[in-house]
């Protein structure tokens, strides 16, 4: 049905349509299954395509039609955009080059753009100089540069239309995220949770780059844009004022992190945006206590539902009050319509850093489901569904164990049971498809002092593979899972040697796609997880597989190029604590499988 609408509207007609809001254009584009107009495929973050030309029966014949080297060595996250003009728009990590490539002419460079950035931004990006990609609306491309400059380019010519500064890298603020266009605004967060920054989400005018609103993650209500009488928490008004100040020791909220650097999703009907905030400043929980007692450190690790027009907060849900593990709460909020206890609900599902799969009501913020998708998860036993708080396991509480004490065998790691790699959701199966990390950690907090522009971490962290569970592949450090968000259960899983750090894609061709850190792109049967096809790209994949149709042909495309936190943590391999002295571990070093280098690979079926 969607397909028919798509066919009825020619690409040219769409481009020329004069619209009141940039996002009307974006919405039209993303409703056309031939296009991949936003990084997550649609506003809801579903990464689902109605295209079925490539399907279960013929995917074995899928082959690479051309490849393009970006010339950049760092980790390549995000993916290409296709908006019907015969070009792919891609980006790179620092120096954040942008390329318009001719899809029909084997990736000929139509134009390229390279910003001029201070290289001192590189060492203040905590985990490689990644960037999660471009946004598009109404003939404009938007890019958040590493140095916090948000730019708008003319998609036709690559000409710079405007630029605006969203932060200051000399105090540790940086950018890795992909902006999102909603109405006539472009939204962008910020990174720097390891530098004691104060996180914020900001809206800029798509035409001029002028700032429209900014909502902070910590601090007084009027700066977070909360009204304690109307903003709700678990369905009830917050009631108390300025929790973003009072749940911190004196002044600590000013360096309280809560950096929203992940994906933003949007519900056009409710007219609300959703995103999560990062860790609360220093990783040493002791320095975030008040009068010697743990406090919530609001609004770090919190899901925010905001009105995109003025930033006002409709509801909040804090996933981890008083973080003790760096469970940075930025993972994307998948907006899914589901049946829950016999009722149709507007759901919001999260495959969270914490190892828990959450389901909330996205109108009210009410918590419906919280179950472990990573079975080794042990920092909390479960969630109290009344209070929405985790029941923390004392043994793994780095605060209870204390400063300068090495709390061991906590699962998952600070990398999270899932990091930034976006999940997919198929409305046909009702399941979420996610690449996950099966890694645990030792965590030792230490006293740290805030110096602007210097790391404000305050914990050392060493990692090891998660203990193997029954039925696990030996030597696995990751899995690709199909998760039932309502039942809170894994339906099938595929174990992988390394953490699965690439985004997932689900299609109406009954396929799910993902990439591995060794560099394979894989297609699996969406019902069973059976592998149907694989292709080895030149380097590990931390980007996302995207799909689109041009002149009647379905393409898939992915950026490979290992890096990111996964590349830093896994390059040398992890030691298996269960190995005896001298034993050869089954857990491999990523460096033995892949090296750096960004390449775009485009796939299609033979003619």
């Amino acid at each position, binding site marked *: 049905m969607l397909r028919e609408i798509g066919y009825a509207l020619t690409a040219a007609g769409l481009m020329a349509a004069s619209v009141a809001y940039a996002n009307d254009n974006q919405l039209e584009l993303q409703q056309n299954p031939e296009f991949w107009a936003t990084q997550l495929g649609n506003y809801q973050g579903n990464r689902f395509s109605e295209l079925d030309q490539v399907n279960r029966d013929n995917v074995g014949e899928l082959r690479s039609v051309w490849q393009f080297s970006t010339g*950049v*060595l*760092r*980790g390549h996250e995000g993916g290409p955009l296709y908006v019907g003009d015969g070009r792919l728009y891609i980006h790179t*990590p*620092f*120096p954040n080059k942008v390329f318009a490539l001719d899809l029909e002419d084997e990736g000929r460079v139509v134009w390229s753009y390279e910003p001029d950035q201070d*290289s*001192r931004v*590189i*060492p*203040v990006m*905590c*985990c*490689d*100089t990644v960037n999660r990609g471009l946004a598009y609306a109404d003939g404009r491309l938007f890019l958040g540069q590493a140095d916090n400059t948000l730019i708008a380019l003319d998609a036709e010519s690559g000409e710079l239309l405007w630029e605006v500064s969203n932060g200051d890298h000399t105090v540790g603020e940086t950018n890795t995220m992909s902006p999102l266009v909603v109405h006539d605004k472009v939204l962008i967060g910020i990174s720097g949770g*390891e530098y004691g920054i104060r996180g914020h989400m900001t809206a800029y005018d798509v035409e001029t780059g002028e700032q429209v609103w900014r909502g902070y993650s910590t601090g007084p209500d009027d700066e977070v844009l909360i009204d304690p009488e109307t903003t709700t928490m678990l369905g009830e008004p917050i009631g108390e004022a300025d929790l973003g100040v009072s749940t911190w020791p004196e002044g600590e909220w000013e360096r309280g992190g809560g950096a929203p650097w992940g994906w933003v999703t949007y519900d056009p009907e409710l007219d609300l945006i959703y995103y999560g905030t990062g860790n609360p400043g220093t990783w040493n929980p002791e320095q975030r206590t008040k009068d010697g007692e743990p406090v919530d450190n609001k609004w770090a690790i919190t899901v925010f539902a905001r009105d995109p027009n003025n930033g006002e907060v409709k509801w909040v849900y804090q996933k981890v009050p008083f973080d003790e593990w760096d469970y940075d709460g930025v993972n994307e909020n998948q907006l899914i319509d589901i049946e829950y206890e016999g009722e149709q609900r507007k759901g919001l599902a999260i495959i969270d850093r914490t190892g828990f799969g959450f389901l909330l009501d996205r109108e009210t913020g009410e918590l419906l489901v919280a179950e472990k998708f990573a079975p080794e998860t042990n920092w909390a036993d479960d969630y109290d569904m009344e209070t929405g708080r985790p029941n923390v396991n004392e043994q793994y509480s780095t605060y209870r164990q204390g400063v300068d004490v*090495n709390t061991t065998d906590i699962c998952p790691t600070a990398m999270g049971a899932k990091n930034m790699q976006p999940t997919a959701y198929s409305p046909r199966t009702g399941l979420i498809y996610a690449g996950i990390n099966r890694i645990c950690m*030792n965590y030792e907090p*230490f006293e740290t002092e805030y110096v602007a522009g*210097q*790391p404000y*971490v305050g914990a*050392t962290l*060493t*990692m090891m593979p998660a203990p193997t569970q029954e039925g696990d592949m030996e030597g696995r450090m990751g899995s690709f899972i199909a998760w039932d968000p309502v039942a809170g259960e894994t339906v099938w899983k595929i174990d992988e040697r390394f953490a699965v750090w690439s985004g997932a894609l689900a299609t109406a061709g009954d396929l799910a796609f993902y990439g591995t850190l060794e560099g394979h792109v894989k297609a699996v049967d969406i019902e069973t997880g059976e592998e149907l096809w694989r292709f080895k790209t030149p380097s590990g994949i931390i980007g996302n597989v995207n799909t689109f149709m041009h002149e009647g042909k379905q393409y898939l495309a992915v950026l490979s190029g*290992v*890096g*990111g936190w996964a*590349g*830093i*943590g896994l*390059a*040398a*391999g*992890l*030691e298996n604590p269960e190995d005896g*002295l*001298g034993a050869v571990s089954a857990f491999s070093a*990523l*460096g033995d499988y892949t090296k*750096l280098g960004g390449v775009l690979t485009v796939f299609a079926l033979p003619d």
Partner: protein
Amino acid sequence: MTVFARACRSTLPVFVVALLMLGLPPAGLADEQRATDDEQRTTGEAPGAFVVEDGKVDPATYQGYLVYTRVCMACHGPDGLGSSFAPNLVRGAERLGWADFAGTIATGREVQPGQVMPSFADDPYVMGNIPNIYSYLRARGEGGLGRGRPKIIESMQETTEDIEEDNEAAAESADGA
């Protein structure tokens, strides 16, 4: 560690490496010699000494492990082994030698585009601990120390506090500089 530990069990119970050019006595970590050692450490004249005994290390080398893990691991990967972002420092320390090693940390470096080693000149904690980091990395290389968090040799345990004090003193003097 395993290779070295095996070699070590069949030969000497204690393996001591000190930079010969510094003229440090091999058993130079005995208590009565701490004062001179310490002075040389803080002034950067006696870097690189380490003791590895059965997978355990002297307190200064242990301190080097801690500082490495707190500050350098985020880019250089666990246990000095390098990452997709920054080079292996076990080999790097050996190849560079003390002066270039310390110099790189103080001034930073940017050889390959997109790869930046920051300068730690303004970070007294790191500046005061360069000799300890160097000891740790040499222990990992020449000393055959294995991966992971080493333990401190029991008989040297009591000197841990001295090391902490050294570092504070070093931090203060670097602060003033």
